[in-house]
């Protein structure tokens, strides 16, 4: 075990995988001589060669499209979208192409592609460096979407994404990069895609979250334990598609109370799918209505500190208060 932060865990895992398999190539904007704007690949162009660490033109659709071609001809491309906010020009390549190549060819072709995209807000990124994009893509059959919240999960899920025979959108919440540290098991630690994880065990209510908000929830749960003796179970979704409904439902059936917390705009977000799953399959195990907390339905996160705070924390201790109300309901 060694303690590290999320960005370092991603860097170390990706580095190890590249060192072990020369089919893996990294391509994206500024990933070469700059080493990536988040410094994931510093020095790799020299270490692995320009053929494997490819500075692409500033064209997201083209870079994903080129990566799809590579994936169809024996390589294992890891495409880096500099910020998830800039992935939209590649929507067609991801949704119409990558996600459908296996299906449309009746299983004859495959597209083992990883797309890494730093996402999420709370880092003064404003409208175009803060977006949550998971809901657009988790809706698409043929595509897997994961978002780790801890260093161990980041390393383990990235290895699974690279090994996966299908396209995986690997979302990295920027606020976790350096703010979240934790232990990463030694060796080739792997976390299977499609598995949620109970990050904190509890009996009184179940809180389901992912990404940076998971840590807000963990903080609130600890304070509720200290202040009120309320025991909150925290389920980290980790994988939005496929969604591990069993882990979520097992916990909810046991605690009989569920709260879902996510950063993305509330309406039509991933939380809606999780809430619907609970409502459909565990309705009669519930002692109280399900609570859903998402980001405000404004077009994006504003820049000014006060405005950004309103998005990330619309009111002080929002999650804490909702957990408390739910526990007492």
């Amino acid at each position, binding site marked *: 075990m060694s303690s590290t932060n999320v960005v370092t865990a991603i860097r170390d895992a990706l580095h190890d995988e590249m060192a072990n398999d020369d089919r893996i190539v990294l391509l994206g904007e500024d990933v070469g001589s700059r080493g990536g704007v988040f410094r994931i690949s510093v020095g790799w162009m020299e270490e692995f060669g320009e053929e494997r660490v490819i500075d692409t033109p500033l064209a997201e659709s*083209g870079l994903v499209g080129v990566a799809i*071609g590579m994936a169809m001809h024996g390589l294992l491309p890891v495409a880096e979208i500099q910020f998830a906010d800039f992935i939209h020009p590649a929507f067609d390549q991801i949704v119409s192409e990558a996600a459908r190549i296996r*299906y449309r*060819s009746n299983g004859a072709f495959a597209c083992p592609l990883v797309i890494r995209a730093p996402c999420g807000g709370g880092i003064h990124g404003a409208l175009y460096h803060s977006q949550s994009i998971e809901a657009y893509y988790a809706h698409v059959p043929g595509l897997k979407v994961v978002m780790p919240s801890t260093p161990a999960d980041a390393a383990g899920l990235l290895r699974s994404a690279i090994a996966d025979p299908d396209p995986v959108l690997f979302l990295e919440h920027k606020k976790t990069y350096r703010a979240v540290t934790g232990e990463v098991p030694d060796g080739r630690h792997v976390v299977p895609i499609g598995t949620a994880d109970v990050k904190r065990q509890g009996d009184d209510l179940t809180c389901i979250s992912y990404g940076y908000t998971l840590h807000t929830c963990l903080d609130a749960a600890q304070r509720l334990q200290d202040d009120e003796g309320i025991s909150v179970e925290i389920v980290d979704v980790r994988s939005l598609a496929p969604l591990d409904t069993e882990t979520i439902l097992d916990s909810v059936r046991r605690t009989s109370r569920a709260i879902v917390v996510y950063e993305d705009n509330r309406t039509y977000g991933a939380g809606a799918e999780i809430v619907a799953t609970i409502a459909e399959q565990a309705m009669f195990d519930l002692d109280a209505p399900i609570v859903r907390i998402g980001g405000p339905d404004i077009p994006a996160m504003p820049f000014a500190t006060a405005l950004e705070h309103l998005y990330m924390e619309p009111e002080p201790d929002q999650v804490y208060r909702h957990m408390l109300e739910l526990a007492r309901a």
Partner: protein
Amino acid sequence: MSTRVASSPHGALGLSDDDLRSMHRLVLTARLLDEAALRQNRMGRAPFVVPAEGHEACQVGTAWAMRKGVDIWVPYYRDGALVLAAGMTPYEIFLGIFAKASDPSSGGRQMPSHWGHRELGIITGSSPIATQVPHAAGIAYAIKYRNEDAVVGCWFGDGATSEGDWHEGLNFAGIHKLPVIFVCENNRYAISVPQSKQMAVKDVADRAAGYGFPGVVVDGNDVLACYGAMTQAHDRARAGEGPTLIECKTYRFLGHTSDDDDKTYRPRDEVEQARLQDPLHVLGAYMLEHHLIDERGADELRTSVKAEIDEALAAAWEAPDPEPGSAMRHVFAEAESDGDPVSETRP
């Protein structure tokens, strides 16, 4: 500026008489197959077909410079003659038209003419325009990375050249000097929109200058001119000199698809004028002139090809439809046999 490649006699291009007879048969097969498919559509047995009529020479000519079993094909939906030249059979094409379970492109999932054939190295395609162009560049990158002696051919219409993906794919290929040939089958219309409203240049090939590789214009109705240009581009690609953009000036004689009525946007005299350069007739005349076939031989060829197509059509019609439940399969990998964890375009 782009250069123009003129036609040469087949002998000067290194083509044997038998090569030319085979090319002639392919052009004729594509034409008669189109006609048969359209009849099936009008009879209500084929919901949708995409005629290649008019494009046969540029497809067969450029295809003939490719090596089957080695090179990779990235076609678009109008490439019926091309995929025949790549090795697909009329039977396989009719399996697609009738959406049968054994359709090699998609098992009846996609509209017809959305080609894919793993064993032949024909890459699966979609309907959005020009999305295959970056794929071609990526495959060519992988070929170069893996030190393979293969070349990628990528075909599209003039309409595709307006798409961002087209630009991004050519730009990437130019930067890395990739072994890929971009072939524009310019029939002067993106469905109904004439070239004058698509671009402010006369030749698509001029755009190659912006990507740092040669652009070549050829008469797309002349199978030998197309073959000649493709051969030079193929040599360049294998020599590590990078991509070429070939613009084949041609014409589409029928509607965009079986659902299109081109009378709403093209004057009839323009179509009739274009038919004077019908690639099938141009090639047929060349065959007669060079004593590669005589009138009787031409009649026998037509009878033979027609019989082949009728037989393929009838057999494909009888082939099993997909099982309804199979629609749920192949969303993700099912087993090791379902594609590969690391896919290859050829086994």
